């Protein structure tokens, strides 16, 4: 077992809230997001997700819970053999839904994130910013109750970063709780939002 990355942390993410999770590189932001996404278990401590103790969550229940959580990975994790449209539609497709039932929703969402003309392009052809927006669209397609975004503006220029931020704010207005992990102070200064600051394994919450 390695060193403790996070300790003595206690916080609550209310429904429909908007917060930044910030701190220097290596502070443990990604680890905390993985804990929230249930892709990592704490060595000790209690995590309650949607009112349920995570130690009580069975392996078979995980996919159902993950469907309520949208996640944007720092490295996008788009599938290179699928088009932008197919990548974004993937969460719906794996649930066995007919394509005709979601095609319009996916196209609308891709237009909303500014990828309306890049529907049939494979990820290797997309720019970093376009990949980022495709990854965000995939996380949003199921209208999750909470969105976790790991450095979503890390690969884009300031203009696009502002545009993505507006996207998250708009999403939040529609009722989704948003957690954005970033170390971009300039980005955080643009919005009055709760800040959760990680440093040396501890968390300070500034409401």
């Amino acid at each position: 077992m390695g060193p403790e990355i996070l300790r003595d942390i206690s916080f609550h993410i209310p429904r429909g809230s908007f917060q930044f999770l910030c701190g220097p590189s290596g502070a443990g932001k990604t680890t905390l997001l993985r804990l929230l996404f249930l892709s990592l278990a704490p060595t000790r401590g209690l995590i309650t997700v949607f009112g349920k103790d995570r130690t009580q969550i069975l392996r078979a229940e995980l996919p159902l819970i993950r469907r309520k959580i949208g996640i944007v990975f720092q490295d996008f994790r788009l599938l290179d053999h699928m088009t932008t449209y197919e990548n974004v539609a993937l969460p719906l497709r794996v649930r066995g839904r007919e394509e005709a039932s979601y095609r319009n929703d996916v196209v609308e969402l891709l237009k909303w994130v500014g990828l309306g003309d890049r529907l049939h392009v494979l990820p290797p052809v997309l720019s970093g910013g376009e990949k980022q927006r495709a990854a965000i669209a995939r996380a949003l397609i199921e209208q999750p109750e909470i969105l976790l975004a790991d450095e979503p503006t890390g690969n884009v220029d300031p203009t696009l970063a502002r545009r993505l931020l507006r996207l998250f704010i708009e999403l939040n207005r529609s009722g989704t709780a948003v957690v954005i992990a970033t170390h971009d102070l300039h980005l955080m200064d643009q919005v009055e939002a709760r800040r959760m600051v990680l440093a040396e394994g501890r968390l300070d919450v500034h409401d």
Partner: protein
Amino acid sequence: MSTTDQTPAVQRTGSGAKTWRRPASIVPQRSVAGHALVIVIAIMTFLSCLTLGAVTLVRDTASVWQTQIAREATIQIKPGDGIDMNAALAQAQAIAAGFGGVRSATIIDSAATARLLEPWLGAGLNIEELPVPRLVIVTIDERAPPDFAAMRQALQASVPNVSLDDHRNWVDRLISMAHTTVMIGIAILILMLAATVMTVVFATRGAMAGNGPVIEVLHFVGAESQFIAAEFRRHFLWIGLKGAAAGSLAAIIVFVVFAWWSSRNLATPQADQATALFGNFVIGTTGYVGVLFIMALVAGLTAATTHFTVVSRLNGIDIGRTDHD
């Protein structure tokens, strides 16, 4: 003008085709590892099928040897002072023919005996001048053979200088040799199948290695484990079937070509030699059923390996998730 003409084409390329294509398979379809897997499966299936064919051929031939040699017995009468050879032969023939399980008893006449000895003693031989033993060939119903001990006793009681050879020694040795040959063949087949299983398992795992990120993404977008496993299983079952079918087909072609060659060269010296050793060089129904079995085994194995690799990968992700559970 040329710029204006080119721009739409670039845009079209950049945004892809306007028409909706069939959704891409969830598992990447084309990969070098996938092609290599098809080839490996085809080769191993082909070798396994050939081994199986060879084993069935040896087994069938061994059984033919046994029945052929057990089909006859020989009564031998040695010449001696005061023996009326023709009377003794006729008496031996009558005694043998009187036993149940004997189909016929034929005296090898002087001319035939001379022909038998011709390679050693030359032509123009007067057989009556030499003290040559004479034979009666007894043809036996191999399903209900006669009581050889009783026949031997009856012959010895009535015919002088007589002996009965029921080829038991030869049959016993041949049975033992045939069993050994078949056992060696089965051992080789088991080794070959084991090598095929191992090769297919490792080749499948190798081909699956590149799909780790796909499995993870599917897992993280909320796909259930059974869905992910089924997608990969179906894809790799198809790969396994393609490879196994190619290998089996190649093996069947080899069998058919051998059978054709064997029938075409019937009654030639080469074919006679081969037929003496290997029978008709024809793979029977067992061989073809075995080929289908190997094909199904290899394809099923590929799918099963894929399933366990996916499940193991998913468990690996979940172990990372639940290392404190």
